[in-house]
């Protein structure tokens, strides 16, 4: 399992840059960032090399911050890769609430980040299914 930091922001100019500057000033490296946009507000999801530090820095600046366990799967960067894993999870009754990925170009691999509704079960299933997950350290040290 790995740790995602989620921040509540209003849909106002400059929120992302403020967040990015705070993390940058703390020496925290952002691996992936996505936004769930709800119109007048949004949630910003961040994978970084130091989720605890990130959460604390943002919280001290006045943001409401939540940390969530996500599953990080490392896989070949090929067509069908996402379909294989999501079909597998679906057939085992696991629902996704968020999914995003990023490519590791040096090794021709991709990292898929999944928010699921039942982490314990999902993690077990993924390993049984032959997929490779990253531990928190492995994700942070990419």
């Amino acid at each position, binding site marked *: 399992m790995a740790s995602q930091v989620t921040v*509540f922001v*209003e849909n106002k100019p400059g929120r992302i840059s403020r967040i990015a500057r705070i993390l940058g000033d703390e020496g925290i490296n952002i691996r992936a960032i996505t936004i*769930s946009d709800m119109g*007048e*507000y949004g949630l910003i999801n961040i994978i970084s090399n130091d989720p605890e530090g990130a959460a604390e820095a943002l919280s001290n600046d*006045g*943001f*409401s*911050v939540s*940390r969530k366990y996500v599953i990080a799967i490392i896989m070949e960067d090929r067509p069908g890769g996402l379909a294989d894993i999501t079909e597998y999870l679906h057939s085992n009754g696991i629902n996704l609430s968020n999914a995003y990925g990023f490519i590791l170009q040096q090794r021709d691999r991709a990292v898929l980040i999944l928010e699921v509704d039942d982490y314990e079960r999902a993690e077990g299933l993924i390993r049984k299914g032959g997929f490779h997950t990253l531990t928190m350290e492995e994700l942070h040290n990419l």
Partner: protein
Amino acid sequence: MDERYWNRALETMPRSDLESLQLSRINSALARAAHEKHYRKRLPDRLESLEDVITLPFTKKQDLRNGFPDGFLSVPLEDIVRLHSSSGTTGRATVVYHTRGDIDNWSELVARSMYMTGVRKGDVFQNMMGYGLFTGGLGLHYGSEKLGSLTIPASSGNSKRQIKLMQDFGTTAIHITPSYALHLYTIFEEEGIDPRQDLKLRIAFLGAEPYTEETRKKIESLYGMRAFNSYGLSEMNGPGVAFECEEQNGMHLWEDSYLLEIIDPATGEVLEDGHEGELVLTTLQREGMPIIRYRTGDIATVYTGTCPCGRTHRRISRIKGRSDDMLIIKGVNIYPMQVEKVLMGIPEIGHNYLIEIENVEYLDTMRIKVEVVQEIFHGNIGELERLKRRIVEELKNEILIRPQVILVEPNSLPKSEGKAVRVVDHREKR
């Protein structure tokens, strides 16, 4: 049928006869009120003159709330054929009970008022005010039917349908809030319809919320019709308490049905005509639930002098404001305390909220801003959206209008000071 007056004898009754009538009626009212739990043993059996009215106790909104449900009932419940009640899922509602005779008298006042503005049997009247527990709906409806005009119970909202009704049935008179009239005009523009040319509107009754003379003239000009001010409150039945005549200069308050006083809201002292103060009204004909010296909370002036129309019932000015903190939003009366009670019942909100009222395209909007503080944030959109929906639903059940709920970041709202409910009214005087 008298061309000019619905009831010439009553409407043009000389003052001395009118006042004798009032004295006789208030004594009947006292006799009936003696049966009401709230007034028991607090009222004299009769008054010898109208001057003695000042010896009677005032009745306040809070008394009605405390007396819910039957503290003001004056007849057996089985003689009641209708009730109108305020909203209220939190705190106590107020209720007004009507006998068959009350409904008939109320309709008579409304018919008289409508006739006064020029509505006649051949008119097509579209009632664009909310029906149900709102008295603006059924109140005008029954009056219009009594007058004999064709009555369309359109209720409020659904602008495209309102317009279609006007086109299909040749509506000539409407009952509408000023803000909705202005908003509706923007829809006419979108549809490419010019009410002046394409419709048959002649008369509008404007009420339920404050507005200026400028706005009245604007509405008249946009629609090519005459717009008459009207005043009422559910405690005094509803619409039909006071209405403008063809002079459109002050609203005649029907003094055969209501005893009119103006008081200084701070001291309770009765003021003379021409002075601004709080309207205090006593029902003179109500059977089911007479109310004695009701403090309406509405601030106005009673005009001195006679009206060219010949009616001897005094005129009151536009309502200038409130003596309390009541708000009128989309024509609906709302106390900030009601909003606060609902919000306090939702623990996630805490004290971190702000109520804003704005005018968006002429329509009143209530916006509740709620801070998403750390304690309630779990990174879950579903949870936030459920919270928003819950706030909207619970408020809508209490205040009957649907507010917008906006989630904001922590510490972005002004801190609330003490116990005052924070309401910021951004609306300009309409």
